[in-house]
């Protein structure tokens, strides 16, 4: 019997080793960033809520932001044996749940989160091998540390695996 997947809550981060799975339930405009080292089969997930920690007055929780969250997760994975050059990424989320009638750039936080995640992964030299981002619906994602499959469930949609 498989063990229960390890939950990653809003603005939280977790790592796991094969055969464990990581899960985030109900990602909206937040982005789930999944990192994986294929040799030692260690995975990590961070639930990024906001694009940029430098816009914030006081950063208490680094996992909340794309820039600091990704660096934090990478370091944590390296601490438990992963090698930076081998790590790949899969990302999901970044939707826009509410359709505001006024067009305010600041409200398009899903897009801004996805952009910030890509920029930060690029700066760290981590390749994105798959993504499922955008749209106007929430996602529940399950990340398998055995083979880096990312399972995506959305309301009234077929299950997807990327």
């Amino acid at each position: 019997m498989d063990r229960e997947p390890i939950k990653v809550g809003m603005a939280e981060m977790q790592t796991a080793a094969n055969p464990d799975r990581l899960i985030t339930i109900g990602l909206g405009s937040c982005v789930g960033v999944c990192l994986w080292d294929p040799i030692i089969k260690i995975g990590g997930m961070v639930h990024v809520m906001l694009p940029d920690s430098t816009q914030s007055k006081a950063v208490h929780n680094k996992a909340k932001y794309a820039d600091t969250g990704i660096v934090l997760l990478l370091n944590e994975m390296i601490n438990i044996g992963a090698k930076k050059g081998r790590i790949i990424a899969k990302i999901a989320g970044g939707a826009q749940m509410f359709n505001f009638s006024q067009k305010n750039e600041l409200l398009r936080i899903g897009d801004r989160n996805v952009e910030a995640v890509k920029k930060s992964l690029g700066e760290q030299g981590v390749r994105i091998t798959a993504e499922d981002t955008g749209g106007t619906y929430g996602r529940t994602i399950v990340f398998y540390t055995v083979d880096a499959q990312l399972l995506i469930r959305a309301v009234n949609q077929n299950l997807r695996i990327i």
Partner: protein
Amino acid sequence: MKDYIELNSMQIDAIKEISNIGAGNAATSLSVMLNRKIDMTVPQAKIAPFSEIVDFVGGADKEIVGGFLRVEGEMPMGILFILPKEQVMFFMEILFSKHGPVSPDWNEMYESAFKEIVNILAGSYLNAMSMITKAVLNPTVPAMAIDMAGAILGEALQQIGEVSDYALVIENVFIEEKQEITGHFFLLPEPGTLEVLMKSLGVL
């Protein structure tokens, strides 16, 4: 004041009191709109980390209908009203049954009606608040979504996420006399707004 977590119990009680008046107004407006008696429970004011807030509404994967609006002006905040998906049709049946059978499929008319409910609830809530604080409050037009609770709450919380890892959630449950309707009304004030509120209530 730096963060919600620094609020003392007297300040939380003051927020509950203002919320009680606001929700009372909102329940009355809802009663008039639906022509039914609507009661409400004593409001809960909770300070919780983002990761725990979804538990208040039955978990991150519960399907809900959410209406969200922002209040601009002297006291910026977010207002979110949510209903379990299976309960929203109760409102639609009351509102539309006099025009014949009510379609179970969600449509644009229901969307407008739901937004109007959110508008009325938020308006009566904010009236109470501006009477007490004398602040000018400008609510935006509500936006709505039907999806997982985590996804909807996440987007509402992002608005205050720039300044805090905690949210102050004021929760009101509305109860219709025959059927229990657990609508949750979340008031998500920005930390600066709390200071204005505390000052006008004389508890800062």
